């Protein structure tokens, strides 16, 4: 694992092949808990991305100085520090969103995805790659969260990106859409069981899509070989 993976490889891995949520199934708690709306998912995703990038960079930079006995505590302290910073900042500048995401900001600390990337990637690779890895992992996480939030919000409440202005400011209020008439959504979807259901279906969907892609590439390869 010491040879550096290509940038393309890291990007593809983080966004699709090994998407934290859909592929590795890490960081599930925030995924489930905050995705009753797309906006919440976006907010959580962005906050986590910030922490991921910063923690990857820090840990990669310090990796030579960390010994095994205290490796996990040191990583966790670093991550906790970053999370606290994000927590404080959101409290100060995005107070409304902060109220919604609540305890889950703090729980980014133990979001297994963050520590997972720290251990699996950042502690073994140079800073620049680690930063990229953090970024794509975070973006992959965000995409998954927004997708889940969107599905649950539309089917459960009939809206999309409700309250987007709290996160993105009034300019983005246009994102807020009412997809179905008021009070017609299936409550199941925004209640806890709906979260599990949607994630299950998303993973199955991703698998199906991957299969289609594989088939297509195989076909292309066959065609190329025939030429």
């Amino acid at each position, binding site marked *: 694992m010491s040879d550096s993976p290509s940038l393309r490889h890291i990007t593809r891995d983080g966004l699709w092949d090994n998407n934290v949520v859909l592929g590795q199934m890490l960081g599930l708690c925030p995924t489930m808990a905050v995705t009753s709306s797309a906006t919440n998912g976006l907010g959580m995703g962005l906050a986590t991305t910030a922490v991921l990038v910063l923690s990857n960079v820090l840990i990669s930079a310090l990796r030579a100085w960390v010994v095994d006995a205290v490796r996990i505590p040191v990583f966790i302290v670093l991550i906790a520090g970053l999370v606290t910073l994000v927590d404080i900042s959101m409290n100060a500048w995005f107070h409304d969103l902060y109220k919604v995401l609540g305890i889950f900001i703090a729980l980014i600390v133990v979001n297994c995805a963050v520590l997972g990337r720290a251990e699996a990637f950042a502690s073994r690779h140079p800073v620049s790659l680690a930063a990229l890895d953090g970024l794509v992992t975070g973006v992959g996480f965000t995409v998954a969260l927004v997708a889940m939030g969107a599905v649950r919000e539309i089917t459960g409440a009939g809206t999309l990106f409700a309250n987007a202005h709290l996160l993105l400011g009034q300019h983005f209020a246009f994102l807020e859409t009412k997809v179905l008439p008021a009070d017609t959504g*299936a*409550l199941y*979807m925004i209640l806890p069981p709906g979260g599990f259901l949607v994630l299950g279906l998303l993973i199955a969907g991703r698998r199906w899509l991957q299969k289609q892609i594989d088939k297509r590439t195989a076909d292309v390869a066959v065609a190329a070989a025939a030429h």
Partner: protein
Amino acid sequence: MNAPVYASPHAVTTRTTRQIMGMVMLALAPATVAGFWQFGWPAFCLWLVTILSCVTFEAICLQIGGRRAMPVLLDGSAALTGWLLALSLPPWAPWWLGVLGAAIAIVIGKQVFGGLGCNVFNPAMVGRTVLLVSFPVLMTQWVNPQMLAQGTDLSLAVQVGLGGGIPDAYTSASLLGHVKTDLGRGVPLLEAMSAFTPGQGLDGSRAGSLGETASLLVVAGGLFLVAKRIIGLRIPLGFIAGLCVPAAIAHASAPDHFLPPLAHLLSGGALLGAFFIATDYVTSPSSPAGQWIFAIGAGLLTWLIRSWGGYPEGVGFAVLLMNATTPLLDLWARPRIFGRSLTGRSLPARRRQEFIR
């Protein structure tokens, strides 16, 4: 070596899966017809729509899965799921509710697990409970009984079925819902119950779902299945005991707060649950001890949820909860093996002294 290998036994019963499912439907028929009598055309249409949807969704899933649809459709399990789902819906629910419930029951409750025999939760109850959680208003709107006498006709059925809403004149409250509401208001139980007489539970002349009203016919159907040895008595008895024993104790200690056991038994889906739902083979344990635990647990949970929980009716949740324990019961409540102790050790060598002279 090339000749086919036949393992023993070389004889089998004549009973088949399809027969079993058919027999259960036969047992349900009287109570269902009584329901049609009480709730009229809308109830009949909803029943039909739900069953047809279940069979259709089953066929679609089999098609997608690339399996031969016909032999599986003919086993009748999808139709039975639809039937039981229809029996547990409000009889005047709009048709789309039946279709959606069927989709949930068959697709999410059954086919993603691999179809008949593989699902771990009772499909009909999955369908009903998801609907209840999703659409609590629609799922708790009941109508007065004796609809045919009041002259409902097909046009009303179509109007209700297409989502036109239920005319106010017909709406009513189920006993459990009514009692829960009134207890919530602080109305003493006896007063809350005054609108209901026990006899209504027996002949079905009171608000409720299709299958929960005519208790006598439900029990008769259940006993028919017992006589035909399609179901055993353990699950029905265990369920009834699990529900009635705590109810009797609680009612004796605080009659103003707890319904009497008979009211519990004759209301909601208790009897349908005991004889037709908790007995679903696929999702209940197969060992005798497991079945007792399962049934008593389901009855007890039903009572708990009805008496303390947020939902007026608990049979669906209780069955699903006990479904979740089924694999563990199958593992941990296995029958004692002949010649072994309960822990699986060989019995000690032992003889009957009294026979030796």
